[in-house]
């Protein structure tokens, strides 16, 4: 969340889409209720099903799963056409005015400029700003000269596929050092220009604003209706409600967008969220109380997992993972540190320019005294990634026999991954599997999954170890919630029986591996032998010690006149990342968490509910990254002069007398930057402004979001029938990976969770099982009558991945029908017959209280979902795949 849970109470209008917080975040949903009751805020809900959140909505639209970009593109078009956007905000706080290079082409035919069909990827060199100065006033001449975005023909001439850009570094070079001039002959690293051309009138045909306007002008209500299945009048009502906050140029009101995995779990999921971010920038809602782009995390500590590098391509604190082109630390730092790229007259804080300080402090935390200036801070100890080790890739590699073992910790891989039959078969091919969990779950029981015969079991040679882990109430430590708040929790009960704390299990494995390296040596023992392990009880480190290590400390006496206090002694905990240095005198496991555990004690343990401003900031409850700022980019809550857009919701402001920013919240900005200097509020972007257009390799599938169909779709994309799906989406080629078409599998299916259950845990709990006892498949009354199905009838659900082997079927899901009015058939483009959507909750599989009740009713729902992933975040497409349904 850019904002936070409590902050939702400050909003005037909410768009909840791709998420179902009343169902999945009932405690957080209280703030939605509060906004409606106290501020009369309006709630628009868009979802493939009329669910619990929809039951609270002022306006609900049932959308076809996977058509979210069409809906949001239409919303942007509506705002632009009806003059409902924040003009001053977008000119000054976004890249709307920046001019894009000649040769950039919009995807009218399904392709942006630079598509390389052979590699199914883009050469992104034309996705860049034009270098230059203020060109305000030249628009008319540019239009007269026929300037504008490229067409398919001119794009091919203007931006030929650049062979240099496709060399090894490409794809990793998100932002090279800016200002680097391309020299003929030598492969030039892709870079943003230091000084970007810009047009403050927003009229130049190649300024971001005009390109965006042109791009989304295709998203007419009729077009969007034919893609989403939402009637035009309902679309217009939704768009009108949400954009009503910017009626007549008013800037006081604020709208928020709230989403969850209903947006991320698509092959274009990142681009849906981009569209939401653009909407919020366009309406001037980012940085403001009651605004923002707010991701609801599906587990209590998913935010923490992400911050601490839960994904393969980042290190803690979102430092980029090194790759093989990073031959030394300096090369690595140069590659990952952006330099500012902005209009010459503006200022940009470009906070990532501090990357080296964060990286050296991280390496000091990792390797302690072994990280020295002389050895490049032990940079060569870090793994260098030469491919995308995403979740799906690893299981695919295991299925191909390349990955031989798996440690599965607090994660039920078979149940949560797409195409579970493939994952079960992958585990059969592994040499070993270690599972740490609190229940005997599906992954460690893969060898007794439905359909496996005794003969087959004998042929499985995988050695399986089950480690008894600790439940959440049995361990202390922090949860980082969706609002980025770090909150310490204390263990409620001791671990039962043989169960061990997670850190004890991990530490034991690590120390044993280290012992083996010590005794036997190995290919590269240094990284393991030199890892810093300074804990009082090495075999079970206290999480308080680990949290302090992550916060970071001074390794030498530090002095800084600009800070208060000015000095920290060696060994003292540091109060914030402004103290981190790249000379080896500080350590910090994650720079973003620096300040969570300062020398005075843990801020994560604070429990003072005081809220002096009444804005739900609660500055002394827990601690939020970065530096206890509760709303990110909050400089944008003020106008150009540093005065709040809405005086009744004062978050931060510029104090003319002190020359500094002050606030109820901690200013997310350079404290002494005078508004006259025009420093952009989006300090993590080299431009200093929010990105309506994402340059270079920021997004793998285009600088603007474009509607593409899911890999399995009932519809041919009406925008570009020849390129229906995203051209860069990754499909898999194993014999278990098949993709279906709507002639055989006519029903678009979406998967989801229920309030009554928690993932794959609560099928072990009698209370949850009492509330919803068994799996079901939700279908509309119309589909039920078409197939002569009654509520409670057993259904067989199949996909292109279903089949039979040795007379036994696999990849098939059985459950009872729930026939409901809450799903309605959809009328889509070019279809005489309506399309019938289907929904299946995820919570059951072959382990749990009622396992074995029906032998064939024990598959998890992910036997149905396809292996196809988003090219940016690598998230599988669990929403909007095709199934067939029969009465069983």
């Amino acid at each position, binding site marked *: 969340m850019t904002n936070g849970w409590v902050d939702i109470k400050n909003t005037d209008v909410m768009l909840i889409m791709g998420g179902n917080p009343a169902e999945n975040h009932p405690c957080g949903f209280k703030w939605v*209720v509060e906004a409606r009751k106290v501020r009369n805020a309006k709630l628009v809900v868009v979802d493939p099903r009329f669910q619990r959140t929809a039951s609270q909505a002022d306006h609900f639209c049932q959308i076809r799963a996977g058509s979210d970009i069409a809906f949001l593109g239409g919303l942007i078009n509506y705002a632009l056409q009806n003059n409902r956007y924040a003009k001053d905000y977008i000119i000054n706080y976004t890249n709307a005015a920046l001019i894009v290079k000649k040769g950039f082409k919009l995807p009218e035919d399904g392709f942006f400029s630079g598509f390389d069909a052979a590699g199914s990827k883009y050469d992104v060199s034309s996705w860049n700003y034009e270098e230059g100065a203020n060109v305000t006033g030249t628009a008319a001449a540019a239009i007269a000269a026929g300037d504008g975005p490229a067409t398919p023909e001119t794009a091919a001439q203007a931006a030929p596929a650049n062979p240099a850009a496709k060399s090894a570094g490409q794809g990793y070079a998100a932002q090279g050092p800016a200002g680097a001039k391309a020299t003929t002959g030598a492969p030039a690293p892709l870079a943003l220009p230091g000084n970007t051309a810009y047009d403050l009138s927003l009229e130049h045909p190649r300024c971001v604003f005009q390109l965006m306007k042109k791009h989304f002008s295709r998203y007419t209500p009729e077009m969007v209706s034919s893609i989403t299945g939402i009637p035009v009048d309902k679309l217009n009502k939704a768009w009108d409600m949400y954009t009503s906050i910017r009626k007549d140029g008013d800037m006081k009101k604020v709208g928020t967008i709230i989403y969850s995995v209903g947006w991320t779990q698509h092959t274009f999921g990142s681009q849906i969220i981009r569209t939401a971010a653009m909407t919020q920038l366009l309406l001037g809602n980012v940085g403001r109380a009651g605004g923002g782009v707010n991701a609801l995390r599906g587990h209590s500590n998913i935010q923490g997992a992400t911050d601490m590098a839960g994904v393969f391509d980042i290190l803690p604190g979102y430092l980029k993972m090194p790759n093989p082109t990073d031959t030394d630390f300096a090369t690595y730092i140069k590659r990952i540190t952006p330099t500012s790229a902005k209009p010459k007259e503006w200022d940009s804080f470009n906070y990532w320019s501090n990357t080296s300080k964060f990286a050296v402090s991280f390496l000091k935390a990792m390797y302690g005294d072994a990280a020295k200036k002389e050895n490049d801070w032990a940079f060569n100890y870090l793994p260098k990634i030469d491919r995308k080790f995403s979740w799906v890739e690893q299981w695919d590699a295991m299925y191909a026999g390349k990955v031989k073992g798996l440690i599965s910790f607090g994660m039920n891989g078979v149940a949560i991954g797409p195409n579970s039959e493939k994952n079960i078969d992958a585990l059969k091919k592994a040499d070993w599997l270690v599972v740490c969990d609190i229940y005997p779950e599906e992954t460690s029981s893969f060898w007794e999954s439905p359909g496996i015969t005794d003969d087959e079991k004998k042929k499985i040679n995988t050695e399986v170890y089950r480690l008894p882990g600790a439940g959440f109430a049995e361990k202390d430590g922090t949860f980082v919630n969706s609002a980025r708040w770090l909150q310490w929790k204390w263990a409620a009960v001791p671990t039962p029986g043989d169960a061990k704390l997670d850190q004890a299990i991990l530490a034991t494995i690590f120390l044993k591996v280290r012992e083996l390296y010590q005794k036997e040596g190995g290919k590269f023992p240094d990284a393991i032998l030199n890892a810093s392990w300074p804990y009082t009880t090495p075999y079970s480190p206290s999480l308080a010690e680990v949290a302090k290590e992550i916060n970071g400390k001074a390794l030498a006496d530090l002095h800084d006149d600009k800070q208060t206090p000015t000095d920290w002694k060696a060994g003292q905990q540091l109060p914030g990342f402004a103290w981190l240095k790249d000379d080896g005198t500080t350590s910090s496991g994650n720079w973003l968490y620096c300040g969570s555990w300062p020398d005075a004690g843990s801020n994560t343990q604070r429990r003072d509910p005081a809220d002096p401003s009444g804005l739900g900031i609660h500055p002394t409850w827990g601690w939020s990254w970065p530096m206890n700022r509760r709303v990110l980019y909050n400089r944008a809550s003020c106008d150009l002069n540093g005065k709040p857009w809405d005086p009744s919701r004062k978050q931060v402001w510029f104090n003319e007398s002190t020359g500094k920013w002050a606030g109820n919240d901690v200013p997310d900005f350079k404290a002494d930057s005078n508004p006259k200097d025009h420093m952009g509020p989006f300090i993590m972007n080299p431009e200093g402004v929010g990105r309506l257009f994402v340059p270079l390799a920021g997004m793998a599938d285009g600088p603007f979001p474009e509607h593409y169909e899911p890999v399995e779709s009932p519809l041919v994309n009406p925008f570009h029938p020849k390129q229906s799906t995203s051209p860069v989406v990754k499909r898999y080629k194993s014999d278990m990976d098949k993709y279906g078409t709507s002639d055989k599998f006519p029903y678009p299916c979406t998967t989801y969770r229920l309030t009554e259950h928690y993932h794959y845990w609560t099928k072990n709990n009698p209370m949850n099982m009492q509330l919803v*006892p068994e799996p079901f498949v939700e279908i509309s009354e119309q589909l039920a009558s078409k197939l002569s199905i009654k509520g409670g009838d057993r259904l067989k659900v199949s996909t292109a991945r279903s089949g039979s082997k040795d007379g036994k079927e696999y990849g098939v899901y059985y459950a009872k029908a729930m026939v409901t009015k809450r799903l309605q058939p959809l009328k889509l483009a070019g279809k005489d017959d309506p399309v019938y959507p289907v929904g299946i909750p995820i919570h059951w599989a072959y382990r749990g209280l009622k396992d074995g009740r029906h032998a064939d009713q024990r598959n998890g729902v992910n036997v149905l979902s396809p292996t196809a992933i988003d090219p940016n975040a690598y998230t599988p497409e669990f929403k909007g795949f095709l199934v067939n349904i029969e009465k069983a």
Partner: protein
Amino acid sequence: MSNGNLEIKAISGHAGGTPGGGEYRQPDGTTRIGASRDYDVCKLIDTTTCIGCKACEVACVEWNGYEFRETTFDNTYQTMPETAWNFWNLIKFNEVETDGGLQWLMRKDQCMHCEEPGCLIACPADGAIVQYTNGIVDFNQANCIGCQYCVTGCPFNIPKFNEATKKVYKCTLCSDRVGAGLEPACIKSCPTGCLHFGSKEDMKFEAEKRVTQLHANGHADAGVYDPSGVKGTHVIYVLGDAKHPENYGGLPADPRVPFFVKMWKGPLKWLGGIGMVAGVLGVFMHYVRFGPKEVDKAEEVKR
């Protein structure tokens, strides 16, 4: 389940005055009628902010210490068709199509704690049902004779008979918690603030305030459900459509204590007296005619 911290206002099947009742002299010289709290308690359920999360269902079962039940899939999100002897709090889910589109209505169903409680009026067992001065209507299973007249007397289908214990059970409005100054368990567990607890006066005020807001937002039929047919209830609802309470899982539009129950326990009570005498006479004659009945040993053990 009776509670010593609460004062009794009415009691079932009891001859004479109310035990513990009567006038109490206050320190300031005024008098009050036997209440340990000086106000009527009330639960307010704002159905327009209920998300059907069932936290109240779980809190109720757990606070009252009941075993979890086996349930079966029934083509709905609703946990079971109606409340049970050991499941007193049930959210009723209803899909209702209106001119304004589909509505998914969720209503927390439980004992309404009527000001004029049909169960108590119908109950012939001395002290099996009590009404406290704060409005809570409570069952005391120790005195229950299992006749199930209360089931007949209730216009909301709330009291439920347990075949094993031969007693009737229902929501106590957490009289044990309320007596100790706490809110009921369901209220405590509600995550959205759709459930409120306080004095009847305050809850009415809160409810009317919400209804005014709903009216202003175009929900012209919104209203408070506090049915006068049972002289008001100590559980009141805000309904988005108060003109059709039956859409909310069969909430009666005009609940009343059944006529014959009122007659039986009121004007026609003398008839019961005659019946009682006739019955005793009948039993005596039966004894004289057939002798004592042997207790079935197996049945005794089963109980």
